[in-house]
């Protein structure tokens, strides 16, 4: 059966504001999944809390809507327990860059094969428009009482220094381009990150589609090659970081892709040879009668170092 983008839609009514940038992300997602013909039973979307956090309910693949900031942590357990799954995280800028920042950085260090999609609208959408960690200092979006007093952080640079092996930026209104980024991220082996610029039409009156339309340009058209060649890791990284700070014009596309780093799953399988052979969920832990696969003999063999055989003196 060939799946069309529509086949990845659920019947759940999409309750984002009309005109919200999230629609573009969703459309790109359906198209990417269809193009890759992803098996819905083997695909999992894990999300945090926020407008962005609702994404899994709208997609007909496994969907785990978790806690604010914790999607990556849940996804890590999901992926490690079943390394055959395609695991994708969706979260907002408050979710992934604020409360859940520790997990975001930790995932880069792990290089575990999870794709992280940041719905970057520079505000806390679902709590009515407070400043998010990606809103620049001094800006006053619609529902702020005062201009933002905190400095912003740069998600792309952060992903790069954290160790993500695929780092890109997309724009939700350029759905076709975004779709291609998503496909590339899914095909990549290792931690992948896409910073998706997403207008929030309700609370962000600064970063509007109008604003982005004037500013974004395509990295690939600018002669940027994101692929790391062996031995050139740090040069590529430094240049990618530099480009991620361009502000006057905003580059989108793939900043960095490194295919030479071992993933966490691979590191485990190197240590534990049976890990990939039979993935953990399908390993037998009991016999048909409900007794464990261990019996007294196996127990004594495995835990020999804790067992003392008594030798009584006569």
């Amino acid at each position, binding site marked *: 059966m060939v799946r069309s983008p529509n086949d990845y839609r659920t019947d759940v009514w999409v309750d984002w504001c009309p005109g919200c940038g999230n629609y573009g992300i969703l459309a790109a997602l359906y198209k990417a999944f269809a193009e890759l013909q992803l098996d819905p*039973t083997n695909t999992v979307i894990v999300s945090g809390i926020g407008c962005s956090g609702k994404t899994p309910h709208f997609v007909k693949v496994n969907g785990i809507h978790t806690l604010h900031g*914790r999607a990556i942590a849940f996804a890590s357990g999901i992926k490690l327990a079943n390394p055959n799954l395609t695991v994708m995280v969706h979260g907002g800028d408050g979710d992934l860059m604020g409360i859940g920042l520790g997990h975001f950085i930790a995932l880069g260090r792990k290089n575990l094969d999870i794709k992280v999609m940041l719905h970057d609208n520079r505000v806390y959408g679902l709590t009515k428009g407070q400043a998010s960690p990606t809103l620049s200092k001094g800006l006053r979006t619609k529902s702020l009482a005062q201009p933002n007093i905190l400095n912003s952080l740069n998600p792309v640079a952060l992903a790069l220094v954290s160790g993500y092996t695929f780092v890109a930026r997309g724009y939700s209104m350029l759905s076709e381009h975004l779709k291609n980024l998503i496909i590339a991220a899914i095909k990549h082996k290792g931690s992948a990150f896409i910073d998706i610029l997403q207008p929030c039409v309700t609370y962000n009156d600064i970063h509007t589609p109008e604003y982005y339309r004037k500013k974004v340009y395509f990295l690939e058209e600018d002669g940027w090659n994101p692929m790391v060649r062996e031995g050139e890791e740090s040069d590529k990284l430094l240049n990618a970081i530099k480009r991620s700070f361009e502000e006057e014009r905003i580059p989108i596309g793939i900043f960095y892709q490194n295919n030479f780093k071992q993933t966490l799953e691979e590191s485990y399988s190197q240590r534990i040879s049976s890990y990939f052979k039979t993935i*953990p*969920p399908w390993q037998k832990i009991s016999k048909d009668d409900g007794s464990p696969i*261990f019996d007294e003999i196996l127990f004594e*063999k495995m835990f020999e170092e804790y067992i003392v055989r008594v030798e009584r003196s006569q």
Partner: protein
Amino acid sequence: MYNNILILLGGPQGSGLESSAQILSKTFARLGYGLFADREYFSNIKGRHSYIHMRISSKGLPVSLSYPVQILCAMDAETFFTHFQDVEEKGVIVYDVSTLSTKYSAIPSIEPGLRERLRVSFSEFGLDGSISSLIRYLKAVKKTRFIGLDYQKILSELSQKFTLSPAHASRYLSSIIVGAIVGLTGLKLDAVAYALASRFAGRPQLIEHNMFIIESVSKTVMKEFGTLCELEPSANSLEKMLVSSGNDVIAMAKIVGGLRFQSYYPITPAADESFTLETFERLEVDGESLGSLIVIQTEDEIAAICSAIGASLSGVRSSTSTSGPGFSLMVEALGYAGQIESPVVITYYQRGAPSTGQPTRGGQSDLLFTLYASHGEFPRIVLSSGDHLEAFYDTILALNLSERYNVPVIHLLDKFLANSIVTTPLPEISKVKIDRGKTVFEKPDFKRFDLSRPISLRTFLGSNIIQWAAGDEHDEYGHIDEDPLNRRKMYEKRMKKLEIIDSEVPVEERAIFYGQDDARLVMIGWGSVKGVALDAVKEMELSGIKCGYLHLKMFSPFPSEYVKSILSKFKPENLVAVEHNYLAQASQLVRQQTGILIGNSIVKYTGRPIYLSELVNALNRILNGERRVVLEYGA
């Protein structure tokens, strides 16, 4: 000859005491003796005073500790000063002759409180504060017998014999203590050799060096002082014994129980369990793999529990191990597991609290916290264990119940159990069952939260089913739904599980009464209180007072009917809560759940175990009309 002996060995943290305890415990076990050893240490890596307090028995397997001890082995002067009062009349103290002139006031690591108590004692005794003055005093007043050894000389013999540098030789300091105990109790060197071989398998030099010291010290002690505390040959009939810490026994149980994922963030006294699990990650026996066990050190405890829940969604048995500070960070996700009806096991080793509290000391002050942690109402199981074997079976029970009922299970333990090394019979693996609950891997139109039954069918991510889950209130598929009537149904579906668990889990797994209806006093306790309470029952019986002990194990759902049926036979003044916390938390819960008032309490919150001697004393004080006794013995 002794059939039961208490020994205390102490020295600076990081000087090999722990490895001495392991060697000694295996030596005793090899000869058939039962052993119970508690390890007391500071939150410190090197230098502060730590000690091991052990009971060895030739009849049965000891389950509690007591004071005074028969033997004190001091690796340094601080140990001598800290513990000389713990030694019985005519007891034995092993010490280093080079410390004779050391005064307590010159030891910087002694804390101000003890320093002041020593100052008062020394001025009372009219002593100058040195070891030698103390020895004279103890000889005269307590008839203490002293074994003075020249530790430096022993080490230089080692360094000469094996041409080791003095620094290298000094690493064997703690073996001197082992040798002294071997000599004093008359243990066979064959058994020591066995223990060394097992402890240092594949490292022949370590075995040789240790053996050299142990042999020469034990011979010197026997020759010059005699086998002062000779042990009777063991009358225990076990042919094999498990010698392990609580952390290790739980790790073993998790492996037998089919655990495939463990996440943790380092914390005392939980981390050793994860370390042990990781050493067994290949699950290999005779070169053949039984599966794979992923152990991951996460970035924090929030990630630890979230990833464990994630792994559980993927269909593996998963758990995380932590202590109070870590569990405090986990509570939001605990509620999430309750809400999405996901299995997950949290192995919770309590330590001294609140806040950082006493990181390396024990306590039981988190019971009420585990019962109410996280916002909202949701079903959870809180299960606690009283000793190593109970913990073994309960660990597997926790995994089973969690998957059978799709609920988070908190397995509540404490530092006392985690760090004590105990001899037990081998667990009976044939008694163990694995119950993974009802699962389904193929079903069109699957409803994860099917309202037609309180306990939903569970599936694995990656089976032939698509599933959704949300911490938001949800419909049967797992999609967000705020309809008031759906809300009521989902709410009730979840809460109903508590009743089902209550009716299905056998009461023997949830509370055990040791005693008879005509007991004068019934103690009510949980966790590590079990061993000392049972010994106190025996001890009181010797003086003609019948006591009983109600051991509480499951706190949620609470076995109210059973507890009521037992306790209602007694008057409040005959009931005594025995707990390691201030409020007597379990007794409050009993009151709340059964209406029964427990009229007396014996509590301890110094971070040290409850000792048999002080418990018996406290029970007598309760009999004499006191309502609350606060215990504080132990350095």
